[in-house]
């Protein structure tokens, strides 16, 4: 089996909210075009870590990181890196669907428009192809000029994924993307994640063990700001090394 190159790496990463030490010496390397799941009890730092990967916490007063995060070998916290450029490379999908109060079309092409792309044909084609990738095209092709807020929650979340894909990132971060959705929408998004990993590196935070088991290749278990265990999902779920992991996976705590 050939080893894929590492897409994202954290080295001796520490993160602080003011005086609070939220991430403690994290070392992890994530493979390209694979799905990595972050699991762990509430408050253990999953979202914090995920948000350091596209520097989403930059504007939080008092937030600070030490150590390195490498994207394709480059340190993303380096002074030469422009955060807006970084986020075009590392897209994000949030827990609650957050479409802009604009039309479906405007939502999908938002990322392209802010890059200065105005050509109507280019935008329309990009919108269609992104919406097809998220299996939303058939559902919304007649509603492109309607408000995105009129879509169902599951459709809104797939729209948000389409919006993220439209700017062709290489990494997509998802923070509990299905926790606000019904089982059918959840299943659709899981299927979608499975498809997307052919083209994208995906990191997903989830509280749902079955979901982690179904969609991910690797799983990282966090506890109180520490990375306790990181392994192939199959290995982790069948024979976890640490007792904490075992307890968490089997639902004995958290």
């Amino acid at each position, binding site marked *: 089996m050939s080893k894929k190159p590492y897409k994202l790496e954290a080295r001796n990463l520490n993160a602080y909210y003011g005086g609070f030490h939220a991430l403690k010496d994290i070392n992890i390397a994530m493979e390209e075009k694979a799905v990595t799941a972050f699991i762990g009890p509430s408050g253990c730092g999953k979202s914090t870590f995920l948000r350091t990967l596209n520097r989403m916490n930059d504007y939080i*007063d008092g937030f600070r990181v030490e150590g390195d995060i490498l994207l394709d070998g480059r340190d993303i916290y380096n002074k030469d890196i422009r955060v807006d450029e970084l986020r075009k490379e590392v897209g*994000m999908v949030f827990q609650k669907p957050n479409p802009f*109060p604009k039309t479906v079309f405007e939502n999908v092409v*938002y*990322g392209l428009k*802010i*890059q200065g792309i105005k050509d109507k044909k280019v935008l329309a084609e990009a919108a269609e192809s992104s919406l097809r990738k998220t299996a939303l095209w058939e559902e919304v092709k007649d509603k492109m000029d309607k408000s995105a807020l009129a879509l169902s929650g599951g459709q809104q979340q797939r729209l948000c994924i389409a919006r993220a894909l439209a*700017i062709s990132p290489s990494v997509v971060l998802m923070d509990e993307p299905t926790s606000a959705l019904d089982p059918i929408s959840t299943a659709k998004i899981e299927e979608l994640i499975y498809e997307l990993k052919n083209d994208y590196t995906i990191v997903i935070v989830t509280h749902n063990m079955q979901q982690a088991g179904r969609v991910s290749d690797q799983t990282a278990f966090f506890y109180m700001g520490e990375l306790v265990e990181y392994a192939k999902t199959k290995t982790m779920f069948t024979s976890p090394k640490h007792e904490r992991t075992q307890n968490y996976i089997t639902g004995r705590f958290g």
Partner: protein
Amino acid sequence: MRVQERIIEGLLWLSAVITIFVTVGIIWVLLSESLTFFSEVSVLDFLTDKQWTPLFAEKHFGILPLVAGTLLTTAIAISVALPIGLTIAIYLNTYAPAGFRATIKPMLEILASIPTVVYGFFALTVVTPFLQTFIPNLAGFNSLSAGIVMGIMIIPMISSLSEDAISAVPKSLREGAYGMGATRFQTAFGVLVPAASSGILVSIILAISRAVGETMIVAIAAGQQPRLTANPLVPVETITTYIVQVSLGDVPHGSLEYRTIFAAGITLFIFTFALNNLSFWIRKKYQEKYD
């Protein structure tokens, strides 16, 4: 205990009733006096005559010059206050560190608490001479400096209400834009301002209403010459200035000349009443968006 509560309840009721009576009283006086006025001067003349000379031998009762003076000074004020106020609001909201924001916001409010008479003299004795150095044909009294200074006065109104509106935009929208690689500038203008547009609109309307009703600054710095013009360099008179002029002058009470101030007053009242209701309506209509 029960008696005490009764008394407090009674006092509260009383103050509410007094407020209502005073309001009704004011409107009644305005209406009845202006009805008498309009029995002597036709509404058509009032609305279409291009001259306002009630105090001269050849009397004309056209409100248009006063309305024009009011709108001109207001327009100048808003074109100063809106860009600056909105820029401050966006800066405070998306760029300034929290500590800085906490100190600068109250400091801005100070601008609004300076007595307007001070602003008036500032316009007359500082701004006008300064502007005259590069606009030589600027008259000593003019709507330009009065409007600019009035604009400075209402900056905090726009910046503070707009900042509130922008802060009320859900964090998830802001993060959504950042997450797509939008810069802070793109996020502010492409996502936050449109999402907060109803609140920003309300702040503008309230600022307009404030400018329309402003008296001291224009009375001191804009002159007292009713003139139907859009030229900001010459003296004009606003509705409020005219009312002050007649109230303080030696026009006999009960005369037609005296009643002109009620006709002017009701015109002003209609303007501000309409503006305040518009802002109330907008607020009501768009409130649900985020709750």
